[in-house]
């Protein structure tokens, strides 16, 4: 299922003195089965944009096509549930959405809202809890007795248990420790690779964008200013700086190396492994 945004504009509190344009003239496509990263400075409209992907917000102008459905400005939409079933969103700080007495019940909440039987929902709960790296005995506990990081995992399991086709992640690792971050991202990436789930990832981490994305969309002041594969994007450091963005550490390192040795590498390396391979090759020919 592709999602296509066309000239999407969103104004908060439209036609009131508090009107605030958060997103303007954004057009791009989220192709099925790919990982699309959205990066941009705080306040550039990333979260607002994400809310359009499952029709939680309707554009004030433009259209959003989600699979077969088209959400258009100014048109009343009915029965949005099928959209929300297919497009799951993990919000920033998802641990805030937990409310049930037990972890089991909380994970079952989403699937059961979409008509999954209780029995099946419980099965899914057990399965997805394990997937997010939590022990099974947690199922009977109150989510409020868990640590922050554990709550986050449970909340994510609650969205995954809906088994959406498209998984939208709004800074899913913000506030986690480095190891938790790595584990979490690896888990999403594995789901993406193994199950073909379409990923949309909003992130502040250039490393994550470089490592996981097939395509990176850059937002700046509510507009889409660039759209490119990571390798192309991160080879233009100066341009990124204009939008208040950096490049991954490994790219910085490569640039420093190039400067000191006076030799330009044939391509930008996006991960440490790539750079290591490149250096090995270079070492032989030097």
């Amino acid at each position, binding site marked *: 299922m592709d999602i296509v945004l066309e000239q999407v504009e969103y104004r908060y509190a439209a036609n009131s*003195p508090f009107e605030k344009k958060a997103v303007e003239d954004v057009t791009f496509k989220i192709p099925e089965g790919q990982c699309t990263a959205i990066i941009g400075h705080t306040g550039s409209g990333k979260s607002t944009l994400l809310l359009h992907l499952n029709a939680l917000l309707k554009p004030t102008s433009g259209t959003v096509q989600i699979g077969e459905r088209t959400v258009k400005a100014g048109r009343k939409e009915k029965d949005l*549930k099928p959209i*929300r079933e297919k497009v*799951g969103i993990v919000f920033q700080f998802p641990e*805030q*959405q937990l409310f049930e007495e037990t972890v089991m019940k909380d994970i079952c*909440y*989403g699937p059961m*809202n979409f008509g999954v039987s209780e029995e099946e929902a419980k099965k899914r709960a057990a399965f997805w809890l394990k997937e997010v790296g939590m022990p099974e005995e947690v199922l009977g506990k109150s989510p409020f007795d868990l640590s922050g990081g554990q709550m986050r995992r449970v909340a994510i399991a*609650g969205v995954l248990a809906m088994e959406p086709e498209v998984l939208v992640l709004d800074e899913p690792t913000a506030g986690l420790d480095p190891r938790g971050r790595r584990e979490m991202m690896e888990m999403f990436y594995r789901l993406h690779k193994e199950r073909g789930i379409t990923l949309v990832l909003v992130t502040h981490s250039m490393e994550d964008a470089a490592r996981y994305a097939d395509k990176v969309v850059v937002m700046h002041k509510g507009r889409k200013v660039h759209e490119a594969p990571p390798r192309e994007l991160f080879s233009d450091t100066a341009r990124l700086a204009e939008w208040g963005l950096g490049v991954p550490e490994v790219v910085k390192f490569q640039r420093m190396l190039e400067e000191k040795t006076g030799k330009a590498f044939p391509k930008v390396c996006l991960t440490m492994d790539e750079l290591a391979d490149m250096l090995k090759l270079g070492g032989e020919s030097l």
Partner: protein
Amino acid sequence: MMEKMIFGRYIPADSIAHRMDPRAKLIFVFAFIAIIFIANDVWGYVIAAAFTYISVKMSGLSLRFLISGLKPVMILIAFTFLLQLFFAREGNVVLDLGFIQIYEEGIRQAFFISMRFTLLVFMTSLLTLTTTPISITDGLESLLNPLKKIKFPAHELALMMSIALRFIPTLMDETDKIMKAQMARGSDMSSGPLKDRIKAIVPLMIPLFVNAFKRAEDLATAMEVRGYRGGEGRTKYRLLFWKARDTFALLSLVLLAAVLAAFRFWI
């Protein structure tokens, strides 16, 4: 709809009303609430409405904006209007619809009560629209200060109010966020039978309460580590200045009261 509602919000601007001393504005509004009850005929309400209109002009806000912003409150007022219209049973029957009669007094009451209500809402909104929450609290504390002699907790009350006011927008944002998060999980708060809709509120209220308690705890800790120990001997960073315009505003109210009383008792 929530984001358009202006009831209880502050709109920064530079107008006479904005620059007035918050104490004067508080007295002004409370006195107005009392004075409006003097009016009991059409002329009284026309004058009170004109007075309100001038006050709106002084605030630099447009009447259109106020009316559109107060629409949700207006619905409430319309409802009161109908209630009065159908349930007051005095005077002559004006209209007989068979199952219900509308009385002369009903029309009168409905008109006056909704008019009074409208003017009150406008005036109180003007107060909050032109005064930052923090100045309102400062003003209130300053007005209540004399009561400290009889052990009235003026400072604590003001502090509680300012904290409450400070967190209203935060709570609204949070409500919006959690609502969206649960909607993404398939909760449906805007359609379906009433029973289901009420059920759908639980996943919203619990996270809200949990967060509110957590925040209260954090705030208490933060205040404690910064050495907060009540209002005793505490000086103010923001000082209040009473100017001529504040006196004039209150005098205009005295005039309004006199005119309304004249209409009521002598004319």
